[in-house]
């Protein structure tokens, strides 16, 4: 079985090289200008140009308002409306991401530099471990494009990620009752990190990321539960051993390192067989639907886990 079967790309979808190259140049400049215009990290999003990709879905997009006002980002509070309500003081610019560890060329990348990478539209399903889901049009670039710039060493087996710690700008990180230890940390196996579906997102719905959704740069791994997709990343480390991850540290019985979406493996306290699609149905209409193995991306990612017991490695 091939390790990865990309979806079929119709010829009509392929943009000639000279067009996308000039487009990239324009986009990078436009995005940087857009960010600059937002001044000292204002909360509002700036337009962000991107090129279409093969990663689309036939499902209805979750309304933008739902995507940006109903989510978890405990650094801003534990309720779903908290990230949107409490992230106004957060300054997503200037920003840089350190990429270090077992790499040939460790580097710190400024956001402007990252925005010059080929930005693509990636519409993905997002399945929260709590049993709800969305369809979100992200803008981002493959994580592998960034990893290629630092020359990972052969000994690197995992990638560790870290969220920023700024109690003054993130109200959930201060006060006497904090739900998690900071910084929030996450990790992937190197082959998961290099998978074409794995992206670093810098925008959604055609604009830069709102603070609530992990501005200015976040991970999106669509076949894993949402908490794996760490937000507001400041550090990426290539490491040899499986890195610690925040939710596994908090409760290893309930949250594993892999956390692949799997309807056959229930959370110890609730079922993962179905999910509530946010923003559809409303009060009286049923919008529960069956959860798909690997969140519907089994064709592309199941082979990563050949021979791995998914019940034991939840």
């Amino acid at each position, binding site marked *: 079985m091939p390790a990865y079967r990309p979806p079929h790309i119709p010829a009509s979808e392929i943009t000639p090289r000279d067009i996308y190259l000039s487009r990239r140049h324009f986009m990078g400049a436009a995005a940087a200008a857009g960010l600059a215009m937002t001044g000292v990290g204002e909360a509002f999003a700036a337009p962000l140009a991107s090129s279409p990709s093969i990663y689309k879905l036939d499902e209805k997009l979750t309304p933008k308002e*739902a995507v940006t*006002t*109903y989510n978890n980002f405990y650094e801003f509070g*534990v309720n*779903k*409306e908290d990230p949107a309500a409490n992230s106004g003081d957060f300054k997503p610019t200037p920003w840089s991401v350190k990429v270090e560890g077992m790499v040939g060329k460790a580097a710190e990348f400024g956001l402007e530099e990252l925005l010059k990478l080929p930005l693509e539209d990636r519409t993905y399903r997002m399945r929260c*471990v*709590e049993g*709800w889901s969305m369809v979100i049009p992200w803008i981002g670039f493959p994580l592998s494009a960034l990893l290629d710039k630092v020359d990972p060493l052969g000994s690197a087996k995992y990638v560790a990620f870290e969220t920023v710690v700024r109690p003054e700008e993130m109200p959930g990180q201060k006060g006497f*009752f904090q*739900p*998690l230890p900071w910084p929030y940390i996450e990790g992937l196996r190197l082959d998961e990190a290099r998978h074409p579906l794995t992206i670093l997102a810098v925008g959604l719905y055609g604009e830069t990321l709102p603070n609530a959704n992990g501005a200015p740069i976040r991970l999106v791994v669509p076949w894993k539960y949402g908490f794996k997709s760490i937000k507001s990343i400041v550090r990426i480390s290539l490491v040899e051993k499986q890195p610690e991850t925040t939710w596994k540290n*908090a*409760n290893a019985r309930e949250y594993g390192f892999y956390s692949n979406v799997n309807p056959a493996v*229930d959370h110890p*306290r*609730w*079922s993962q067989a179905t999910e*509530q699609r*946010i*923003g559809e149905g*409303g*009060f*009286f209409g*049923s919008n*529960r639907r069956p959860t798909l193995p690997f969140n519907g991306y089994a064709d592309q990612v199941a082979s990563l886990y050949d021979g791995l017991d998914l019940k034991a490695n939840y």
Partner: protein
Amino acid sequence: MLSIPALPTLPRRYHRASVWALYAIGLCPAVWYFYLGLTGGLGFNPVKEFEHALGIWALRFVIATLAITPLRDLAGINWMRYRRALGLLTFYYVLIHFAVYVSLDLRFNFGAVWGDIAKRPYITIGFACLLLLIPLAATSNNWSIRKLAQAWNRLHKLIYVIAVGGAIHYVLAVKSVTLVPFVHVALIVLLVTYRAVRRPILDWKRGKRSEARPARSQA
């Protein structure tokens, strides 16, 4: 009797009306959240929001029910006349909470309901609390109190089990115990624990009073 009321006492002729007012006010949160749900005011996962609000209000009413005795013991405020209403409001909220879960959330998929009750400890506990509330609600009337006499007191001690069960249900249902669950659970633990130390506290208070009394009569 000897306690000093900290609040102005309500004239006796308003007692009945104030109890009915409590039922009416007590049902307001349910009506309000239902209205918000109908008009799109509960956000993007309205059924869950409604379900959770009803559950939290059930816990608040059980907390209020359990607070009546310590309020009288320690603060000298006698609101015993409201305890039945608060207890029944607890039952109504648990009942609506369950009804919403079965109807709006699981869409009458009784297989899934029984599966949850059998497999998920927090739902097992929650459902057990609902069942235990039924005999208490059914005997919350003067006739039952007279008929059951001492047995009524013993039966209604079940409320402690129910309150603790509700707290466990809540803690198990949330992803992590944050401030709001912590406060509710802490209050329940405090109020149930109070029952264990109530006797010594009352004896101590009575002792102080009998010491104080002869001194006053001499003066």
